[in-house]
Structures are given as C-alpha cells and as structure tokens.
C-alpha cells in the first residue's frame, strides 16, 4: 500500500533557469553551473549548503560528477545520475525529496542542462540509433525519432475516439498565446489554426507545429526540507506528492495480459491514483497543470488519464476555452515545450513554482494553490513520474 510519508516533507526552495536559445555557445557543464548558482541565489543559499546533486540525461549532458566538482561540491552526501528522458524528469525531484525526507541530504540541487539544438538533437537527422535491446524491433524499419514513436499512439487515439487535427492544433495555438506573455519563451509570435494546418508534416499525424522545440538551456531546482524552506528567502512550494509508474513503452513489450496493451491510455492512468492519494487531493483540486508536451497529443491523453475529463474526451476538452489562463484548468501556462522551450521536463516544474509563488506576471493564474507537473507519460524509455505541488504557508 502506498504510504503518504513523503507528502509535505520536502519543498522547492529555489529555482534557476538560463536563457533558452538555439545555440547557447557554452558547454552543458557551464549551463548546469549557471542554473544551479541561480537557483541557490534564489533560495538564499550558497554552495556550502549543498549536500546533494542530481540530474537525468541520455548521454547528452554533463553529469553530477562533473558539475558538482566544477562548483566545489566534491563530496555530496547524496547524488543521482539518472539515465532517462522525460519519463524520469520528475522522478529526479521525487527522489531528491526522498533523500531529504530520509535525512540523507539537507539541500539537493536538481538540474537538467542540454544543448538540444546546437549539439545533440533528439529529433535530428542521421543520428545513429541507440543500442540493441528493444530498439532492435523498431530501428530496422526506420522508426528512430521520438516524433515517430509518439505518432503511433496518437494515430491510434484519433482512430479510437475521433480526436482530430483541429484538437491538436488548438493546443499548439493556445500554448503559443501563453508564451507571448513569457519573456523566457523562444517562440512568442502568435499562430493561428490555419498556420498550424499549413505547417509541414513530420510523421503523421504530427506536423512541425505539433512538435516541441529543440532547445539549448538549463533549469535547476533546490530541494530541501519543508521546515528549512520556511526559513529561506522565497515562499516555499511544497511537494505534496511525488509518484512513479511503470512502462507503457513503445520500445518494451507488454507482459501478457498486462501493461501496455492499449496505446490510447498512457502510464499516467496508473500513476494518477497514487499521486492524488499521497497528497489527499483530486483532479478537482488542481488549479493549473503543466503537462508534458513533447508533442501536442500527449496533452490530450494526460487530460484523460489524470482525471480531468473522461476517456476519449481529451481532444474536445483540450480544444476548449477551459485550458486558457483564465479557464477552469490552465495548462502549460508558460507555453510549454512547444513554445517556451524544451529542457526535458524540468522547465515545467520551474513554471509551476513560479505560478505557486504568484510570480508569473501577466500569465499568473489567479489563486494558484495546487499545481500538477508531469513527466513524459511512459511511452518511450518506459516509466513515468509526476509531482503535485502546493503553495507553502
């Protein structure tokens, strides 16, 4: 049975981001260091306070055993170099919260630093496929890029439930409008549904404007105990719940009769009950949601699987006014990965913290008390993770 011991034990006390760009001109080590220092300054802490350091990466970025020593953190009491993509982006922060709750570390910095446009393009052409294991069943057919892996469940969902290109387009259009109010966003010029429908195919049903940006940049978050966070510079944001769920992977086979039979339901459907139970909250309590948007369609399936609408209704719901800044459930208030930039999951957490502090400026959600922030919903490199965050008192 899931315990609730983690709920409220740890908080996010600092957040730091570098500028997002198409070419940072600096190393991922330098990006990571800048984001970590900014986050510590935000919290009112120094390097000497840090005793934990963590990241996730897929062989594309500077690890904790480089970034730590580069900042003088030579003997962290806890560290984590998590292999994985967006599915583990929120797990890293959840695991830092566990380390803090267990008394192993006091102050953990979690970062993600990527030059995903100028150095290591996930959607790039000509990349050698990763190693064997389950990619052996996709790579020989030209199924190589994340956009292709997501296109298959998206197509299945469209066929099963009548989700349309216009539903997907509405997500891209709205998130671009949100980004216009975000100085950090890379894409701020408004787009229309016609612009969306005219954008070139990449891998059907996805057009270019269904795809997240490839971004250079870094984000860092400071995780500490809820008690300590209350003595620091900024209003604390509490980790009301962190949850994990197993794979629904396009790479890994489902166990017979088990997970992953139905492409139209994501791993979030299994994670969500754990997450809400840990926090003692439900979907109706969520004031805003930062939903992992590597592609537009992942918003659709997560709206369903996190319980904001019924199965199959995610398309019409995503296209409705409900998801705007002033709506009943503002989603991807910063523009998301589609328009702000793609720092592999962690910039969703940074935005949620800003919203819960009331720091979000013209895109601020009134009365934001509870935010959901989610990782990739378990389709690629199996597994997913998510956080429920609450404004500290």
């Amino acid at each position, binding site marked *: 049975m899931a315990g609730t011991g983690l709920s409220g034990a740890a908080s996010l006390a600092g957040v730091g981001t570098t500028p997002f760009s198409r070419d*940072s001109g600096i190393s991922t080590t330098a990006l990571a260091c800048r984001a970590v220092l900014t986050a510590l300054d935000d919290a009112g802490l120094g390097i000497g306070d840090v005793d934990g350091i963590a990241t996730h990466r897929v062989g594309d970025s500077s690890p904790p055993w480089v970034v730590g020593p580069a900042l003088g953190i030579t003997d962290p009491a806890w560290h984590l170099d998590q292999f994985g993509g967006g599915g583990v982006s929120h797990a890293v922060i959840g695991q830092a919260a566990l380390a803090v709750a267990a008394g192993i570390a006091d102050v953990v910095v979690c970062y993600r630093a990527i030059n995903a446009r100028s150095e290591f393009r996930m959607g790039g052409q000509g990349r050698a496929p990763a190693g064997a294991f389950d990619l052996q069943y996709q790579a020989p057919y030209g199924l190589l890029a994340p956009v292709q892996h997501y296109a298959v469940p998206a197509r299945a969902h469209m066929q099963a439930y009548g989700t349309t290109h216009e539903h997907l387009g509405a997500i891209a259009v709205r998130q671009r409008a949100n980004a216009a109010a975000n100085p950090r966003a890379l894409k701020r010029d408004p787009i229309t549904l016609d612009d969306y429908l005219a954008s070139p195919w990449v*891998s059907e049903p996805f057009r270019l404007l269904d795809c997240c940006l490839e971004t250079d940049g870094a984000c860092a978050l400071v995780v500490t105990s809820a008690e300590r966070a209350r003595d620091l510079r900024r209003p604390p944001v509490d980790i009301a719940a962190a949850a994990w769920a197993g794979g629904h992977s396009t790479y890994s086979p489902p166990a017979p009769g088990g997970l992953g039979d139905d492409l139209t339901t994501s791993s979030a459907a299994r994670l969500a009950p754990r997450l809400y139970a840990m926090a003692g909250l439900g979907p109706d309590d969520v004031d805003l949601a930062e939903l992992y948007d590597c592609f537009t369609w992942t918003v659709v399936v997560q709206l369903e699987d996190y319980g904001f609408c019924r199965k199959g209704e995610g398309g019409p719901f995503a296209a409705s006014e409900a998801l705007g800044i002033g709506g009943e459930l503002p989603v991807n208030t910063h523009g998301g990965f589609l328009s702000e930039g793609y720092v592999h999951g962690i910039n969703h957490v940074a935005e949620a913290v800003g919203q819960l502090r009331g720091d979000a400026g013209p895109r601020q959600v009134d009365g934001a008390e509870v935010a959901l922030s989610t990782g990739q919903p378990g389709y690629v490199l199996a597994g997913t993770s998510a956080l429920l965050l609450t404004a500290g008192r």
Partner: protein
Amino acid sequence: MNRTQSLRQDVRDQDGRRRDGRGAAAPRPRPGADRDSAYWWEAVGEGRFLVQYCADCRTPRFPAREVCAVCLSLEWEWREGTGTGTVDGWTVTRRTFHPAFEAPYTVLRVALDDGPALYCWGRLVGADPGDLRRGQPVEAVFTDTGPAPGAGAPTGGGAFTKVVDWRPRE
C-alpha cells in the same frame, strides 16, 4: 564559426555518406540482436516467423525473453507463428531521419494473432497508408535488408539479413 559549431560533427560520416538524409542511400540500421532474440532474428533470416511459448503454462510471448512473465518458468519452446495480425497503430513518416529510409514511408505496430499482448513492428508494403484502419488484417512478408553497413559504421551489428514487413490480408 563559434566554439560550439566547430565541435559539431560533419554532415558526412567517415564513409563519406551524408548524415542528413539527402543523397545516396545507406545500409539499414542493424542495431543487433541480443542473446534472447538472436534465434528469432536468425529464423527471420530464413523467412520463418517464430513465436516463443512458455513450456509450462503455454503463454506465448514476444519479443523473446528467458523467463515467462506469467509463471516465471525458464523453460520455453519455439513454434511457427501465424505470421498474421491486425493493425494497432501506425505513422506515415514524411521527413527523412536516416539515409536508409527515404520519406515517405509507413511503419505499423501489429497485434499478432498468436495471442494477446504480442506486438511486432514493420513497414507497410503493397498498400496505400491512406486506407489503413485499426483492426485491419495484415500478414508478414520478409524483406531483404541489403548489404551490411561497412566496418566501423555506427549502425553495424547482428546479421539482420531479412526483416519483417506487413501487407494487407484479404
């Protein structure tokens, strides 16, 4: 040219092939079988579609594994599979991601007829992707993969002399 640009790999790899999808075709990626799957791929190379079954509880599984996820038995047997299934999902890729695969092309996820939760991938052959629908019956065909990548190529690996593709079944 700034520092970052100077570190980028050239558009051509060491064999002179373009890495950006334009120009001459390149050998298909052959990521390599693992020690569980090698027998299956060797059979594919002979034009046979095998399915692994637990020797104790008789549950079929795909891809190959040493252990049965249902009863944890380590005993298994190979049987001739049906080589048929139904379309579960697909994508028509309209951008070239690898020089071996010139866009457009269609990749299917196929639910095998041999049992529940058995999925195989492959390209659509002999049909227009515009006519695809979920649940559509398909059958396996075996496609020669052509010459192996040159020594030292990033996609070198196992034999993979044939792969499984799919065509509509009447």
